[in-house]
């Protein structure tokens, strides 16, 4: 589990790409080119650190809507994302049926995600159960916001995994708000990781703004799960830097000062500083990365803008498996 310089750069690259793509989504929204965006800005470290701890493409993931960076690590592309922002036919989540950020990437074992929060948690337990039944050495990662751990659905899923020692990692991305509601109105414990003791599994807190810290903790618990050691519950703590979504106005419930203060721990900043200072990344390499990211994002937007919408008839199917048509 040595973290090579190359690995570090690769992680940073995915964080950066995600950030630039996410920023562009906000621009597209301001330009009136898309109707909705829900952002992962500020959560890239947790997502990339988690993704890199997996055998990507082989392990399974039931993600949640802020996981753009996670999905990019799994093989989702900027084009895929912008296509879905625009409801274009080719987008891989749903062929234009779902809102953006409702991920699905079959080829990467990233399961289709819906809007009702926490529904993905029992799916992860079920996948873990299937893995165990088949005696495979895969693991499943499921992510969720801290507010959504208030759902009984999440509790039941974690309980299942704990009872049956399933290979599931429950990663809580605690960005300190559920839309407007702060964590202390969601739980009477200090951290979602504290919930682990009541459910009989390992609980760990990690600094969710530090990608390498997340990677280290995740690598440990993934290894443990893979070798039959059972599930873990990780809280990665960070801050939701943007409003909840493009429909939200966060000025009613938090001060600008608070937001500015928290931006100092922007995970991109944190990682960049670390990499530059340790010499893992040079200023020139960084510049190259930035322009590569920009080029990919530009390309994605250009591509998606030209891409066709689904044909009207496509709305009618596939309600049942019998109706699935491959383009």
């Amino acid at each position, binding site marked *: 589990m040595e973290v090579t310089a190359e690995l570090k750069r690769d992680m940073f690259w995915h964080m950066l790409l995600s950030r630039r793509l996410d920023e562009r989504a906000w621009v597209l929204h301001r330009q009136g080119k898309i109707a909705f965006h829900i952002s992962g800005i500020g959560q890239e470290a947790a997502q990339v650190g988690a993704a890199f701890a997996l055998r990507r493409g082989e392990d399974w993931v039931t993600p949640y809507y802020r996981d753009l960076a996670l999905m990019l690590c799994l093989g989702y592309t900027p084009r895929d994302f912008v296509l879905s922002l625009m*409801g274009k036919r080719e987008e891989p989540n749903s062929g*234009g049926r779902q809102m953006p950020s409702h991920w699905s990437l079959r080829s990467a074992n990233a399961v289709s995600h819906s*809007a009702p929060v926490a529904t993905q948690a029992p799916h992860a337990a079920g996948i873990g159960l299937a893995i165990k039944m088949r005696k495979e050495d895969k693991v499943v990662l499921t992510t969720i916001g801290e*507010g959504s751990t208030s759902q009984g659905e999440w509790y039941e899923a974690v309980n299942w995994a704990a009872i049956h020692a399933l290979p599931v990692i429950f990663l809580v991305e605690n960005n300190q708000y559920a839309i*407007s*509601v702060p964590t202390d*109105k969601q739980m009477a414990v200090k951290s979602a990781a504290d919930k682990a003791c009541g459910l009989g599994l390992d609980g760990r807190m990690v600094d969710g703004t530090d990608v390498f810290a997340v990677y280290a903790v995740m690598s440990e618990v993934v290894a443990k799960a893979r070798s039959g050691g059972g599930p873990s519950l990780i809280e990665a703590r960070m801050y939701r830097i943007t409003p909840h979504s493009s429909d939200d106005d966060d000025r*009613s*419930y938090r001060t600008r000062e608070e937001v500015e203060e928290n931006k100092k721990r922007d995970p991109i900043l944190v990682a960049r500083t670390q990499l530059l200072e340790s010499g893992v990344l040079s200023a020139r390499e960084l510049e190259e990365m930035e322009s590569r990211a920009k080029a990919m994002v530009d390309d994605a937007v250009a591509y998606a803008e030209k891409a066709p919408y689904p044909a009207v008839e496509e709305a*009618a199917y596939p309600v049942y498996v019998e109706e699935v048509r491959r383009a």
Partner: protein
Amino acid sequence: MPEMTLIDAVRMAMDEEMARDPNVFIVGEDVGVRGGVFRATVGLFDKYGPERVIDSPLAELSIVGVGIGAALYGMRPICEIQFADFIYPAFNQIVSEAAKMCYRSNGDWTVPMVIRAPYGGGIGGGLYHSQSVEAFFTHVPGLKVVIPSNPYDAKGLLKSAVRDPNPVMFFEPKKGYRLIRGEVPEGEYTVPIGPAQVTRAGADVSVFAYGMMHHYTLQAAEKLAAEGVDVEVVDLRTLYPVDRETILASVRKTGKALIVHEDNLTGGYGAEIAATIAEHAFQDLDAPVRRLAGPDVPGVPFSHPLQDWFMPNPDKIAAALRELAAF
């Protein structure tokens, strides 16, 4: 009389009822400082404080379950479900508990409670922010189900709902929140739960609709008028228990019935109205009972062409009316 939007009327009703009765309180996600994601409760937190405008944990089951408990104690909770699509986690509490409490205790225990939820499509919300859920609840004796179609009724019906000693499901057509405007008197008035309203008298065809579809139906009826077809429009308003007399009287007059809703066709609310007409106005019918509804797919798709395919609109209603008139 001031003109206002439907959502302003909803807020006004809650404000007046909270001022009138200290037992009335609001509980839901983001209803506090944020004033609700649709801004239905803006200003109420400042006016009535955190004890009467409660930001719940992100968990619909307990929003309703806690509401029921408070109602049993004599309070008058207004529970907000952020989107009707997210009401399912609370299904057990609504159907097993709220609906059955009075009957099962032979009247000893009652649940005076309102559950408000924005419903309906056409707003780019995809599968999980567009749903119509009324049919699940119009099958449940013990509940009342109300859907207003204009600001006047929204205020008057919501005030009645708050005062009603039974659990009332109050679904608000969210596409109409700001689009539907109308005159609303300042002072005290209520609109009774129960009676439907003939909103346009006509001789040739009867249309039964509610919410946003009622709004569209009036538009369609105007078109038909220009073509010489005299359409009667009935706004059902209270879906359960339904006003059979008004429905049957209308069909007896016109001999033709169309029911319109945006929820998918099969097992939708229109089935009950059609069945009622087929059983009790059979001898007055001059044509098959027609239903115009959303198609039988699992939800309203996101991408605009697909969404347009799904949603009933004035043109589709007019076409159905033309056909029925020509029968």
